[in-house]
Structures are given as C-alpha cells and as structure tokens.
C-alpha cells in the first residue's frame, strides 16, 4: 500500500514549510516507495524539526546579526586592492569594501561591472570582442600619436590603422565624432587627422589638444576598460572597470538578466529597491566569502532589509538609520549628542522609551527578549 507520487506532491506542497525545504522534500521523495504510515511519519517529523528549527519569538535578531557581521570584521584584511577573479581589474575587498557597502556610498571606490552576453554572443569570441569595443570608452590617445604643428597652427593625429581596425572604426568616423563634439572642422589626409583651432593662437591650439583628448570616440563614458574572459562554462564574460548599468543594459547582445554591477546605488536607480536589496546581500556575502569568513545569509539579509525598508538605500550610521530613530536619547547616545538634545527641546519631542538604549539610560529593564515578557503570574483568586 504505497502512496502515489501525486498525493506526495500535493501534501508536501500544502505544508507550511519554507519553499526550499519543500523542494528538498519533493526531490528526496521522488521514486521512493512509501507506505501511508511512513509518509505520515516523515511529514510529522519534518514538521517537528521545522518547529524546533524556527527562531524563537522575542529573539534580539538585530543585535545577533550586527554582531555576526561586525565580529568577523576584526579578522578581515585591510589590503584595499586585490584581484577578484580577473587579474586585470583591481577591486576593493575586505574590510574597506564591507564598510563601503554598509555606508551605501553613492560612488564606490572601484566600480566594476560583470556583463553577461546573450546566447548568440556569449560563445563567440569575435562577437564578444565587438561588444567589448562598443562598451569601452575609446579616446584619441589609443588610436594614434598626437602632435602640434605650430607653424601651421594645427593638430595632427597620426592614426594607427591597426588600432582603428581592431576597434572597427574608420578615420571618417573619428573625424565626424570630433566635429560633432567640439564643433571644429577636422579632415583626413592620408593616415593623419588634421584639426585647426578657431583662432590661430598658441593658447587655442593647446586648448584644442586638451579637448580632443577628452572626446569619447566610441563606447560609453565612464567605462575605462573592458576585459573579456572565458569562463569555465565556455562562455565569454566581459568585466569592466567603471560602471554605467543603464547604458550597458541598452546594448543589444548584453544579457540584462544576469549583468550586474558592484555599485548598489546604481542598481537601485536602474532596477529598483528590491534589486538593490538583493545586490546588497550579494555584495556583502561575496566580500565575506572572499575573506574565508562564514556568515549566515539571514544576518546579511536583515542588514540589507533595514537599509532598504523605506524604499531607498540608506546607510547604517549617523546619516542613515541611526540618525532617523524615533528616540531622542538613542540618537543622542550615538553621535552628535548636543544638537539632538537641542533640537528635541525645540520640537517638544517625546521619547517613548521603547528601544534598548533609552531604557538603559533611564535605568530600567529593556523591552526585548526576556524583558519583553509581560505576563508574570496570575493572581490567585481567594475562596474559590
């Protein structure tokens, strides 16, 4: 009398268990002959184990998470630059990176993107390279040497044909781009590109040289370098120094579902708060993992959640969560004590003494964990 697969599936799916456990259970129960009694026993024990594994009400989950992330900080290295995966690109790692994530910096010190490609591009080295040139910002400097001709008051660029070809550009395109950006007229003679300043003065000439150097001939502004790497799966992946998610996602051939950046705020702006939360979790987990430190995701999730509850990415600290607490005393006890006290006087603020610090300050039990249990005992009714 064995239970058929359908009943197993249905019963398991209906259980009040986390999805992951349900999936595990279904996978393990596939093709296993079970009697009804055995099946019921399995369900019973699983539920009992779940009940046992659940976090208890009243647990100070916040403090535990904060400690679990803060404590390994002492074991992390300080070395800022290191190579993460790609030898060519430097990325901030270790404690400085963790601090950066928690601070929700608008501009991380080493922005970097990992660009995955669509199927048609991902396994073709040439196509991947073509995309890479589309993304990397190309300046005149890489296309050839620049010289100034003072007698004729002109700027001459000796274009390197090989470099042009490599980047799939023509001299005409270069000239057009420069005309468009700077409004000067440039023309091509042989292999060289010639430009003249508006007025034939030495100053103008130097000015022109300077501005020509900053013209982006091809690619996206802010992407300093693109490195192509073949992953173990045989897929080509682009790694960039510099990050502009919005522009890169718009390029045809880029897989927008897998492409990512290490700039959390950029993800927030382009994809929204849920994506930012996921990015925070990913970045923090990777940073800790790279250092060989084992921290449960649940702790990182809690930190990411409190940073993103309000619908924007807020830093941990004075300018973010701690500075926006309801309690005057808690804020005063953290940082910038005096101004918080003065402001509270002006506003006639009321501290409701619900948090931890406030209650420690006034010297009474905190309302958390064992301090949050209100019912002590029922008074005995006499004469019953």
């Amino acid at each position, binding site marked *: 009398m064995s239970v058929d697969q359908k009943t197993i599936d249905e019963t398991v799916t209906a259980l009040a268990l986390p999805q*992951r456990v349900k999936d595990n259970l279904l996978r393990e129960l596939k093709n296993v002959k079970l009697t009804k009694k055995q099946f019921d026993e399995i369900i019973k024990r699983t539920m009992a184990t*779940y009940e046992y594994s659940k976090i208890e009400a009243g647990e100070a989950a916040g403090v535990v998470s*904060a400690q679990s992330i803060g404590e390994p900080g002492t074991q992390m290295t300080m070395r800022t630059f290191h190579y993460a995966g790609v030898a060519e690109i430097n990325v901030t790692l270790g404690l400085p990176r963790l601090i950066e994530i928690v601070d929700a910096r608008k501009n991380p010190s080493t922005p970097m993107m990992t660009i995955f490609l669509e199927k048609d591009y991902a396994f073709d080295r040439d196509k991947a390279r073509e995309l890479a040139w589309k993304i990397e910002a190309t300046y005149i400097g890489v296309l050839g040497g620049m010289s100034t001709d003072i007698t004729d008051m002109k700027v001459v660029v000796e274009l390197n044909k090989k470099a042009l070809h490599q980047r799939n550009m023509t001299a005409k395109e270069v000239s057009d781009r420069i005309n468009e950006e700077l409004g000067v007229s440039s023309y091509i003679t042989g292999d060289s590109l010639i430009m003249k300043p508006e007025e034939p003065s030495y100053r103008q000439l130097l000015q022109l040289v300077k501005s020509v150097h900053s013209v982006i001939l091809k690619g996206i502004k802010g992407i300093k370098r693109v490195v192509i790497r073949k992953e173990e799966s045989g897929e080509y992946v682009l790694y960039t120094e510099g990050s502009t998610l919005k522009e890169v996602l718009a390029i045809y051939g880029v897989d927008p579902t897998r492409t990512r950046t290490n700039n959390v705020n950029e993800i927030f702006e382009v994809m929204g708060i849920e994506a930012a939360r996921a990015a925070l979790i990913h970045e923090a987990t990777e940073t800790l993992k790279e250092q060989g430190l084992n921290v449960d995701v649940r702790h990182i999730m809690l930190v990411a959640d409190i940073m993103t509850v309000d619908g924007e990415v807020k830093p941990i600290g004075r300018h973010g969560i*701690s500075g926006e607490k309801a309690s005057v005393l808690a804020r005063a006890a953290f940082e910038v004590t005096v101004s918080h006290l003065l402001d509270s006087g002006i506003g006639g603020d009321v*501290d409701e003494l619900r948090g931890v610090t406030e209650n420690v300050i006034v010297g009474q039990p905190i*309302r958390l964990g064992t301090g949050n249990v209100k019912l002590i005992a029922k008074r005995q009714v006499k004469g019953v």
Partner: protein
Amino acid sequence: MLIATPKRIKEIKFGLISPKEFRKMSVTRVITADTYDDDGFPIEMGLMDTKLGVIDPGLRCKTCGGRAGECPGHFGHIELVAPVIHVGFAKLIRKILRATCRKCGALLLSPDQKTKYLEQIKTLRNMGQLTEDIINEVFKEARKSKTCQYCGEQQPEVKFEKPTTYIEIIEENKFLFNWDEIPGKESNKFTEFLIKNYEVDWIKNADIEKSGDGLTIKISAGKKSLSLIMNGGKTDLVLKINGEKSGDFIARTEDGKLNIYKEGHEEEHKLMPTDIRTRLEKMTDEDVEVIGMDPHNARPEWIILTVLPVPPVTMRPSITLESGQRSEDDLTHKLVDIIRINQRFQENREAGAPQLIIEDLWELLQYHVTTFIDNAVSGVPPARHRSGRPLKTLSQRLKGKEGRFRGSLSGKRVNFSARTVISPDPNLRIFEVGVPLEIAKELTTTMFVTPRNHDEAKEYVRRGPENHPGANYIVRADGRRVKITDKNCGELADLVELGWKVERQLKDADIILFNRQPSLHRMSIMAHEIKVLPNKTFRLNPAVCPPYNADFDGDEMNMHVPQTEEALAEAKILMHVQENILSPRFGGPIIGGIHDHITGLFLLTNSKEKIFKNEALELLGKSEIRELYPPAGEENKQPYWTGKQIFSHILPKGLDVKFKSEICLQCDTCKLEECENDSYVVIKEGILEMGTIDEKGIGAFKSVILDKLMKEFNPVIACKFIDDATKLSIRGIMRRGFSFGIDDEYIPIDAQTQINDVMDQAKDKVDKLIKAYEDGELEQLPGRTLAETLEMEIMKELSKARDATGDIAGHHLGMDNSAVIMAKSGARGSMLNLTQMAACVGQQAVRGERIKRGYAGRTLSHFERNDLGAEAHGFVRASYKSGLSPTEYFFHAIGGREGLVDTAVRTSQSGYLQRRLVNALQDLEVQYDGTVRDTRKMIIQFKYGEDGINPMNSDFSKPEAVRRIIDSVMGVKE
C-alpha cells in the same frame, strides 16, 4: 502573595524652560560671585549657597534638609542684565529671523501654505517620523518673500556672523530729487548733485530742458551736453554725459510723485538680543507650530536667555586639595565670570556709561554665557583655566565617548565584579571557571531569607567573613546593612529573620558571568560555574578560548555575580557555556579543541601503537570511564587497544557520522573507506571505525562531531564530550611527548643544494625578464603597463620559486616532524610557516607590491640605481634558520611593519563598523507572529530570514536534513 510589577517610566518629554517657569523653579537668586567666606562657609546668595545643595559633610541643605549624599541638589538662577543668545540655537534664530516679518513677527507664508505645512508636520509626527525635512522647506519657502503679506513691511536680508551676531542689511536707496519738480523747485538739488559727483561744473548756469513726453531731461552748453533718459516703465534712468553713459538711477512712484534714488546704498544694522526677543515674542502660536516648535513647551523667545540657570553644587563639586585650598569645578569658574560681568554691566548702565562701553560689556557677557554652554564653538576662543587647559563646560560634559551619554548613562560601573589574569586548566570542565579564594571571599551573592533556606542562611552568617564559604553582610528588613565580622557573626546568625537578605560568599557551583573584552559577540559573556581554587588567576578550560578570543599571554578577564533570582535564571538558561557551543553566526560549534587538543587526538588516533591496559586506564581515568571495550588483540598475553578504540570510549553511544578529515589530500576521486591516508572518518554506533581525528573532528569552528552532537543529541552530551576529549588529548600528547626545536628545521645537504638550484634558476629567470623588459621584448598583459607587467611576472616567478623550495623542504620533513604534524592536523601553523623557517622566507611586500620606496632610484644604498633584480626589491632568499643578510633583514622589517600598522588601523575601523551596526539594528526583535519589527512596530522582515529558521539550526534548509528524516523513518520500518 501579591506580585508587584515594577513601575516604569513611560515617556520623557523634552522642551525649553520659560524664564517665568525658571524663576519659579529656582531656589535662590545668585548675586555674588564669591563662593566661601573666610571661615569656609558658603556665602548666602553666592554660587555655593546651601540652598543649592550641599557637598561638605556636616552641612544640611537649606532647601530639602538632606545631608551631603542625600540631597540631589537644587537649581538657582542668575538674572541677566540684558538678554543674550543661546549658542546652541544660533542657527535656528537665523532661520527664524529670515522667515518672519521684522515688524509684525508673522511667518512669511500665506495662510494656505501654513495650513498645508502644519498638516504635513502633524501626519509625520503621528507616524513617529522626523519632521526635519518639512521644517527646512518651510524656512526655505518663507525666506523667499521679500515683503510681509500681512503688514506690507519690506524684509531686509539678515546677515549672520558666527557665532552670535545678526545684522540686518537695509538697502536704502538715497533720495536724490523729485523728477516732476525739474525744472522747477528741485533744480538746484539736481545740479548740485551732478556737480558734486560728476565734475560737470559747466551745467551750473546751463538751461534744463525736459522733453515733451517727460522721459528725458537735457542740459547742454556749447558742445557739452548731459541727459537723463528714463525708460518707458518709469523704473530706471540712465545718465549720459557727452553721449557717454555715466550712471544709473532708480525711479519710484511714491504718493503719486516720481522720485529718483541712487541705488545700492546699504546700511548695516546690528540686531541686539533684545530686538530679536521682541520680534520672536510677536510670533503667534500657530506660526510657531508651522516652524516645528511646540508653543506650549518651546516658545521661540525662550531661546534668548534672560535668566540663566545655576546648576546645583552637587553637579559641580569643589575639591579640597591637600594644602587645604579649595579647587573649584570648571562650571563654577565660568559662573563666577558670568556674575562678575553681569554686575559690571549693571553698574555701568546705571551710571549711564556710553553706548560703546555698554555694547562691549554686552558682548563680553554673551561670550561668557556662550562658553558656559559650549566651550568649543567655532569662532569663539575657548575659555581657559589658569593653567591654559580649556574648560570643560556643559556641552563638553555630554559629548563623546567619555561624555555623560556614552560614558555614564549607556555604560555603567557595577559592583560585584572581579578582574584578574587568566590561565589554562584542561582538567576543569568547559563550563567551569577556577576562581581564586581571595575573590570568592570578597564577592557575594544575595540570599533572600525564606522559610526554606532560613537555617542555611544562618549557617553562612555564623561562619563569618573569614571562614569560606561564609557571609559578608546582612541586610535587615528595613534596608539597613550590617557588616559581618569575626566578632559579631555569632550574634548576628541568631538574629537572621525571614525577609532579610544575607550577602553570602561565593562557593563551588555558583553561577557567574565571565567576560573578556572586546565583547564583540554574545559569546563574549557566558555563564560559568565556579570552582574555588588556590592561587591568584582565573582558570579556564582552553576549549572555551575561541569564543572569548582569549589566550594566556597575560590576558585578563572579568567576572560578574548575578544578584537576583531572575538574573541567575537567565544566566543559567540562556548564557551557560553549554548553551553557547553553537555560534549564531554560522550555526557551527565555536567551542572545541585547539592547539594541543588537536595534536593530541591526532597522534592518538593516527598511530598504530598498541596501548596496554595500564596506559589505557591512565588515558581514560579522568574521563570517568571505568570499563574498557573489548581489546583489539593480545601481545605477550597482555590485551592491548588501539588509539582509535581509546578515543571511541569518550564518544556517546549511538553516534553515526562520516566525514573527510583535515589531512584529506582532496584527491580527484575520493576512495572513501579505502583511503590510504586514513583520512576518511567513519564513526558507527559511537565507535571510531576508521579515520584520524584532527581539526575537522574536534577543532573549534570546524568540528563535524561536535556539530552533530549539538544538533542530534543535546548540549549536555556535547559538553561532556568536549570535557573528555580535552582531557584525553592532553594525556595522549603527554604520553608521547611533543616538542619543536631548531633541529626540526634541519634539512639534509642534498635538499639544501636542490633549494639553492631552484633559487639560482629563479634568479636567472628574473634576470631574463628584466632583460626582455629593457629590450622592449616583454609581452604586455592586457590593460597593464609594461612596468606593471614586469612586476607581476617577477612576483609570480619568485613566489613559484619559494613554493618549490617549500615542496623540497616538505619532502624531507615528514610526518615525524612536529611542525608538519601541527600544520597537517590543523592544530597550529601552516606549511608556509615551515617553509619560511627551513627553506626560504620569500618576497617581502608592501601593499601587495615589491618594495620600491627608499632612495632615489633604489631601495637601499647597497644597490645600483635602477636595479630591478629580486634582491634589490625585498626578496629574502634565506630561511629563518640560516639567518637573514643585513639587507634582507631590513626588508623583512619593512614588510613586518606594514602588518603591524594594518592591525592597528583595522581594529579601530572594525570597531566603529560594529558600533554602527549594533546601534542601527539593536531594537529589532522577532515578534510572536514571526515578523521582525523595530520599536515603532514597523515591519522590517515579514518572516525572519525569509524562512523563519534560526541561523543556529540553518542545517534544516539543507537537503541532508530531509534525507536524514526519511532515512530514519525508512530505517525504523525495516
């Protein structure tokens, strides 16, 4: 019995104190700057008036009658002759001045805007959110309007000069003449002005003509001409002399007349605090609410001080020096200054002193009041003590780490605590702590005398303070404390009644809290059971070192004694060591064997040695194992056991576990049970069938066995296992003996030659790379400069060489070498450490690069300029054993220094990170409905960690957990 719930402070309201209220609160007005008279008694109405409280023993407070220590102190006040500004609110005053009318005091917003903002503020308040942003918007909006829409007054710019000066910039256009009266009554005025300002003497007698449309006035004489041309809108006019533009003027129609002004005449008018105060007084309660103030608790005029509170003496006690001289508190010094200036100000004003002197005194009074409140305002020279030290005034008392908030309120000093050096004792159980007798006799725990412990309590008292375990104090029902001495202990014992408290000395098995700083996680404070021991250090089992991060190189630890039954219960149930074996950080064991524990068990379980009965009993005797398993065999008719069998004795019955141990070589295909390194551990029914116990078996953080015991058995069994394992391992290692010396770093001559060969080859390769670089033949790595490429290549080459030497050395140092045993078993150190000792130290690096700094073009003067070679940039070819050359030694010191700096910087940075994290997250709690919420009851997570599973039991979400359940059920059926 009635259970009384302790009273709680429900809320604290903040606000400003009005001068009126303050005068009512004050116990005395302070008028004299003197403190004590010649007899040393406080002067009445002076700063030390006994009405303000007392600090000298023997005196009584005139207000409450309390003695020093009983009287909390009472505030007095100083009547300021002229109002002054409170520095803390200087910025707010600026904002208000710019946002309100100078004449009628109204907020410069339309009634509609006011209601709109007021509503927004109220909603935010109700939601418990900060109103800062809205209020800033109110100020910004109000500042925009230049005229008051209620009384029509022009609003001048208000300039703010730090710290407390406000200046109105009144742009007064200088009236010149009336257009309509020219030519006519004002012609003279007109010509005089022009002559004075434009050197046009010739117009004196010239004719003045006005054009028909009345827009141009012209004066001409001969070739010279002058004209004033008005624009169509009659607002501006231009002066032209001889056709050239020479000046601009403004025209205004006032009372039907067209008046001409000269523009841009600015006049500065300083606003005195009195002016500001009158203006703030005019604000209506409604307007006050719109700028985010609470009119009942904080009227804006109250931020201008007219009465200065004098803090009670208890807040600023004076100290009597050895010489009998009194030294006053910084606050008292400051108050003396204020009173003096206040008096002088008053005298001068009454005497009718000139305005200039009055203003100077006013400013001086402002300075003293400012520094009394905050002595670190930018732009104000800090008030200094006679010795030159800046005074610590009110703000300084509150601020910072040692300030009132962080230093005294959030962190409090406690009684019933002890601190001393720690030292190891593997014979203690892990939850025990050895406490010196001296400490046990000094510290006490409170016994509440009840019918059930009445006799026991009496007995403790009878033993007195010298007879451990005795008692040190009794507290009678009325709260009087009586010290127990050798002499009175007998009498006191008979007196002990129900309801009294006896402060009993600590004895064995008492629960205490044990802590080592820095307390980075909750396992930094755990509850231990006392074991009173001789000598003066705290003793603990080395297995509990990892959670405290303690070692015995002089570390000190703290002990705290719980004083109530509730505290004791919490300590025992939640904080006991055995409840904390698993770390909530990653759900694995954080308590476990370290160092010699691992080596000991490794040696025991890895050897094939025969252990005879005597030895076996000696090994296991301390673990309270009295019966041995059947022997492995017999030799000379003597039964013997293997090391694995001995270890099996301490395993709990019914433990089944299989895992790869630390010494596993990570072969491509694991042979599992057939492993020839004995690195696949199989424990069945509590018997170690095969495999070696090393770090993966017993070590802290990594132990699979402990993990299993905690999750499938219970903490008591796990705890017992750690106790037994530590005892067994120490005896195991002592049986064999284990040491490491310089001889263990010896490598044979031929190995040394091999190492030298590798080194020479590496040097050649580096030289070749350098040559290729210099000849420009080096192939550049993508995205790197040529020089960077060379650096990377050299680093790679040298580290390869070092690894090769390490392999050679490792080859000659086998498992009979102590360092190899420690490294392989995971007890301490690594093969890299051994390589550095025996073969080659390797490249020294600063910031991950070869050493570059030093002199121009070279690191040291021992090398040629621009030498790119290995030894010129910090490659240490020698081993620690062979000794470093002077240059190598120097480079090694450079590399070593970086490590030290790194640690120093890191501790401060990670400490701050932790503080911020804890502060941001401390109020979060898992609710009964499974959500995580903050104090406002705002939901942070709907289900903790998305699945509600405790990280300590996070294994449940792994597939193995389910498989285990299925297996056990299926097994049961069979």
